[in-house]
């Protein structure tokens, strides 16, 4: 009897060994999203390098699944259980700032580190005049093409955003490609992805058509997201899917397996695509739907929670990550645009003449549009994702957009227009 009790207690004790298991030196807990295998390996290597390079701070890395990363972080923020340093997906930052969950970085990072930062990253990380987030890379979004196949149908291969295909030109190319393709599916939109991808990838289409997710001054979606321009742009996109031009890409091998000639995706596929296609890989700007080619920007960025037990330690690790060689390492791993000019200059991919130089041009040339910088962003993107899901499956585009706009505006009202707060903490 007594032994059984002890056994039970032991199990219970084992079961209850929760957070902060050991009792080691002042540690920095860091959260990172489970991204591409290369990113994962790189951050692990960086942590190891950092830990080995000094002995005052030990960094512990936790990988959280991307699919529910934001929900996890939100719950942890409510619980006051955020780590000392974490990654946030681009525009989600403003919600956390509004909640008072983050602390500014201005006074924590050396000015030299910040000076070289890409303007797009600086904008993305700034809120209310303070810098809250810093990315070690920015993103690039474009159309990857299979040069040989495209050439076979006589497609023009533009190298600048200004020369991007018009919507009609692109449709013509799709038709010609389809005619030569066994199953008629010639375009990859990464429909196998989930979540934020759809907002990131397809809101530039709205902007290119003269619409947007929300009115950037009033914050309201009604009249903008469901405007005729938006409906027209997304109806066109839906048409591609409806006509079978888009590969569902369940195995994520549509482009690498050369089933399709065009893949609408970001910089992170470069390593894989390059490995599969070699010199046949070509990077094109997204099509111009009337108001010039537009593309996405922003990516995962680092932030320090207000409740961090060691903001200086976290900042030290962050500064380490922003060193040119570390920025270069991460950018090399995921193909991202390096965060600083210095790193760009050293990057074989992004320096002038590099194969991905287009991305830099997009970010610095006003082609890339940041996603709405508002605490309402999680709701905006959720509404748009649902809307995209609807239209991708053949739903009525106008109805779906109107629903999304109404949801966004209702949330705005519910939160009393997201008044500036000092946060709760």
């Amino acid at each position: 009897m007594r032994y059984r009790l002890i056994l039970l207690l032991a199990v219970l004790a084992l079961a209850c060994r929760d957070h902060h298991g050991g009792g080691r030196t002042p540690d920095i807990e860091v959260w990172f999203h489970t991204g591409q295998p290369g990113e994962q390996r790189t951050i692990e290597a960086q942590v190891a390098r950092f830990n080995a390079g000094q002995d005052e701070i030990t960094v512990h890395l936790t990988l959280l699944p991307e699919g529910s990363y934001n929900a996890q972080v939100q719950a942890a923020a409510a619980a006051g259980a955020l780590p000392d340093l974490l990654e946030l997906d681009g525009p989600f930052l403003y919600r956390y700032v509004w909640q008072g969950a983050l602390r500014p970085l201005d006074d924590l990072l050396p000015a030299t580190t910040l000076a070289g930062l890409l303007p797009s990253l600086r904008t993305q990380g700034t809120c209310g005049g303070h810098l809250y987030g810093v990315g070690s890379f920015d993103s690039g979004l474009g159309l990857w093409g299979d040069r040989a196949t495209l050439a076979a149908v006589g497609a023009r291969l533009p190298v600048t955003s200004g020369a991007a295909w018009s919507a009609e030109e692109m449709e013509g190319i799709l038709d010609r490609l389809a005619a030569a393709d066994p199953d008629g599916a010639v375009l990859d939109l990464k429909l196998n992805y989930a979540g934020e991808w759809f907002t990131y990838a397809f809101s530039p289409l709205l902007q290119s058509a003269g619409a947007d997710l929300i009115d950037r001054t009033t914050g309201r979606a009604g009249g903008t997201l469901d405007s005729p321009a938006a409906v027209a742009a997304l109806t066109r996109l839906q048409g591609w899917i409806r006509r079978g031009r888009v590969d569902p890409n369940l195995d994520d091998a549509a482009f690498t397996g050369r089933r399709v000639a065009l893949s609408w995706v970001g910089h992170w596929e470069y390593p894989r695509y390059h490995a599969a296609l070699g010199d046949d890989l070509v990077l094109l700007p997204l099509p111009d739907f009337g108001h010039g080619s537009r593309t996405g920007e922003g990516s995962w960025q680092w932030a320090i929670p207000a409740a961090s037990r060691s903001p200086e330690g976290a900042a030290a690790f962050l500064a380490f990550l922003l060193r040119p060689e570390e920025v270069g390492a991460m950018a090399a791993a995921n193909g991202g645009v390096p965060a600083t000019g210095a790193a760009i200059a050293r990057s074989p991919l992004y320096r002038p003449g590099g194969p991905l130089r287009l991305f830099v041009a997009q970010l610095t040339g006003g082609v890339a549009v940041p996603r709405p910088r508002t605490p309402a962003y999680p709701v905006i993107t959720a509404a748009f994702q649902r809307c995209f899901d609807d239209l991708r499956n053949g739903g009525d585009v106008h109805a779906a957009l109107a629903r999304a706009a109404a949801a966004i505006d209702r949330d705005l009202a519910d939160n009393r227009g997201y008044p500036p707060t000092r946060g709760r903490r």
Partner: protein
Amino acid sequence: MRGGGGDRLHRHAAAAMAAPALAGLALFVALPFVAAVVLSFTDQRLGSPLASRFVGWEQYRRLLADPLFRRAIANNLSFAAVVVPVQTGAALGLALLLNRRLAGRAIFRALFFLPVVFPMALVAVVWVVIYAPGPSGPMNALLAAATGGAWSPRDFLHDPAWAMPALILLSIWQGVGFQMVVLLAGLQAIPAELYEAAVVDGASPWGRFLHVTLPGLRSPLIFVAVVTAILAFRLFDQVRIMTRGGPNGATTTVIFEAVAAAFDRQEVARGAAITVIFFLLVVAITAAQRRLLRPRGVAR
């Protein structure tokens, strides 16, 4: 009453024995449920710096006005409307099949029951492969073979017309073994003399099924139907993993909406209101079961 010649030791022991479970139930079941009701009348969000407000019936009003939520309820209802009779019928068929003296009966029973022990998350992932679009998808290939090539392959999980039937088929495949086992136990509880008496009375096999088997299985059948109905309303894992409620809300469910609200969007109050509605649905089903299981009166 009984027990305990006034010994306090005994009473204390009783209280101590019941206490951990009662505390657990109070803390982790009763209290949250009360909290759900309370939360559903507020606009509480997780992590919002704004103070929460009492909003009365607003959450419920919005839910009932939300086409997506209405779709979720309709989906649950149609899922139940198909799964309850089909799965119960299939289970009855399997049970009757296995109630015979069949070579390898134990193996068949084990096979049909096996998916019941599989985690639904695993079944869902495996069936994503089965429903793979294109001619090489197993389901597409099977249907093509069955129709002599007339079948044109589709993307079941992204087809508004096919996503729900796809989930239904998988759910039946996974769950029918449970009902089968319950009904098999019910069949074996019917006394053999009843069948012998029926044979003596000249009943045909169909007559025996109608007048001996079915009445004898009344309780297990009702139980099985009710459990299946409740499971139909708890539908979540498959949806979250395979379709995320899509396409066009074709597979969204009450619980999927609750999780999407409370967890994905931090709209705790809305999620709470959904679970309260869910609870009322479950209570309605349980009440129906109680009524059905009441001893039969004059009316049949």
